[in-house]
């Protein structure tokens, strides 16, 4: 059984972190762009909980949650958003280009869908070296329309790569409802197009995500090849900064808030007697403190050295 309390901590950390990011943008303290994942925490944390340290993840433009779930330092992550020298990419990457191979996190990615092919390459290395590593490649419902997804799933199936292509079906690609951008009811139905399992789970249910990923990872580790997993969730945040959310109603959002994953997991913790209200509040406070610390760290971080901007293009 996965560690529910740890999962709860991580989900809270992600939620508080993303709220802070939105706040910092609103206050003009950070620049550029970011896509927050409020409402999708259970998927990120469910995946992370199901993987081994040797495993790898590739992420998307909406990747803070994936990264934090996998164990990123919130301070360095935020320092990257502040464009500082000790951010994960030394201020060179920003929200959509952050990576830490030492924890098996192979990058957020600003090119919708593109990282899935990269993930297949990580999986190919694992297979060719008879490694234990399984790779989870996150992508969105919108990204599922990208040709590179098709090319990669076909190739991964033929080569039996230990790859889980994981679609976070959060209802929208920017403003485009899934039904307008995806020609099939569930992205999981496309598994059949590649002769691989296509599975769909409630992405707001931490345990369901965990269990499904654990199963598919075990299968991949046995050499039985890739799978396509759809996690159904909802993006409660706007797409990115400045999204007026005119493409959906406030009622729909309120409804979705009823199903958001953190409250749900809290209920579960209470039911199982793992945490009472006081315990929950303690964890709440700890997450908030961790984020406050991260902001302080990021703001105190040095600016990048402008003299070296052009350096490091080649190894």
């Amino acid at each position, binding site marked *: 059984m996965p560690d529910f309390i740890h999962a709860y901590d991580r989900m809270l950390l992600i939620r508080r972190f993303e709220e802070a990011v939105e706040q910092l943008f609103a206050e003009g303290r950070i620049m550029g762009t970011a896509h927050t994942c409020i409402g999708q925490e259970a998927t990120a944390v469910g995946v992370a909980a199901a993987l081994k340290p040797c495993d790898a993840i590739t992420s998307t433009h909406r990747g803070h949650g994936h990264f934090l779930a996998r164990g990123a330092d919130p301070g360095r992550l935020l320092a990257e958003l502040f464009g500082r020298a000790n951010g994960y990419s030394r201020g060179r*990457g920003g929200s*959509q280009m952050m990576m830490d191979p030492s924890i098996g996190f192979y990058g957020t990615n600003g090119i919708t869908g593109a990282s899935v092919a990269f993930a297949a390459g990580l999986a190919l290395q694992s297979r060719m070296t008879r490694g234990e590593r399984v790779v989870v490649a996150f992508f969105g419902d919108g990204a599922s329309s990208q040709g590179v997804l098709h090319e990669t799933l076909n190739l991964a199936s033929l080569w039996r790569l230990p790859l889980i292509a994981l679609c976070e079906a959060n209802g929208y690609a920017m403003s485009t409802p899934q039904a307008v951008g995806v020609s099939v009811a569930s992205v999981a139905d496309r598994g059949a197009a590649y002769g691989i399992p296509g599975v769909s789970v409630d992405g707001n249910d931490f345990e369901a995500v965990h269990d499904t990923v654990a199963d598919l990872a075990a299968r991949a580790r046995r050499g039985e090849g890739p799978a396509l997993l759809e996690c159904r969730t909802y993006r409660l945040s706007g797409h990115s900064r400045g999204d007026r959310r005119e493409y959906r109603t406030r009622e729909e959002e309120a409804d979705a808030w009823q199903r958001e994953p953190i409250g749900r997991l809290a209920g579960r913790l209470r039911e199982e007697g793992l945490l009472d209200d006081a315990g929950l509040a303690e964890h709440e406070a700890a997450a908030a403190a961790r984020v406050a610390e991260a902001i302080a760290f990021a703001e105190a971080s040095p600016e990048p050295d402008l003299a070296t901007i052009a350096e490091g293009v080649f190894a």
Partner: protein
Amino acid sequence: MSQSTTAQIIRETLAAELRRDPRLFLMGEDIGAYGGSFGVTRGLLAEFGDQRIRNTPISESGFVGTAIGAAVAGMRPVVEIMFMDFITQAVDQLVNMAAKLHYVYGLNCPLVIRTAMGAGRSYGATHSQCLERLYFGVPGIKIVAPASGADFAALLQGAIADPNPVLFLEHKLLYPLRWEMPETPPEPVAPGSARIARAGTDVTIIGWSWMAFEAERAGASLADKEVEAEVIDLRSLAPLDMATLLASAGKTRRVLIVEEGPRTGGVAAEIAAQIAEQLPDGLDFPVQRLAMPDCPVPSARTMEAALMPNAATIAAAALDLATRV
């Protein structure tokens, strides 16, 4: 006269063309209810409906290919690629299909691809590139990149009227700028002509898009220093208006080309090479290039700002060239 932002000018030009020509339609990601990432098409869905303002799936190769077919079949597609960085996914369709249709088959392909280029918003290395160089050396594709309100209206009309594939480049930093616009829209300008943004005699500064805008500011600032810079807004990268460039270069004998993008392998190199070839004894000094170093665009605001040429660095380079003996 009225004040409009660049984004409004593009929108109004598109709206006028949509009203005028029933064959015209728009395609792109989130151009409907959202109005596109930069709000350019905001409101058009309400007037023209979802048959003519078509939200596409995220499939740059597929929908550009589709637009090419529709253009050949007689439609007038205007495609939005959200960021120019994503045009990397449509290279095959544009280079191997669109660019060759007239040469090989004699077919018209009246296609416009609008896209948002450039740095300055801390969007990072995959959302900040100037990739006109990917297409600049490909025969069969026209490229325009306006820098002023009037030109956005004039060149967009010209691009839409053109029977060939045209890339229409919109710099992110230009979108919010306000321009005095006449009540009647400017006449169309076909791809292929540069604009003398500022007449002068001492040094020629050539730029396009945001760099032309900055160059114009640089030119104005140099007047205080008694240097009369001639600033040329290239506007059209393909075809190049070499006549205008050569006339200016022949007059000032000193040329500075400004490019947002890595120094090596850009458009400036071609212009420099052509000026040198065609004015063998006409220059006091070799053509100078001011560009970004050969590296990706980092996301941090501090680094990004340090990389991009701007009015001050352009003025300094132009002053140096103009006063060199």
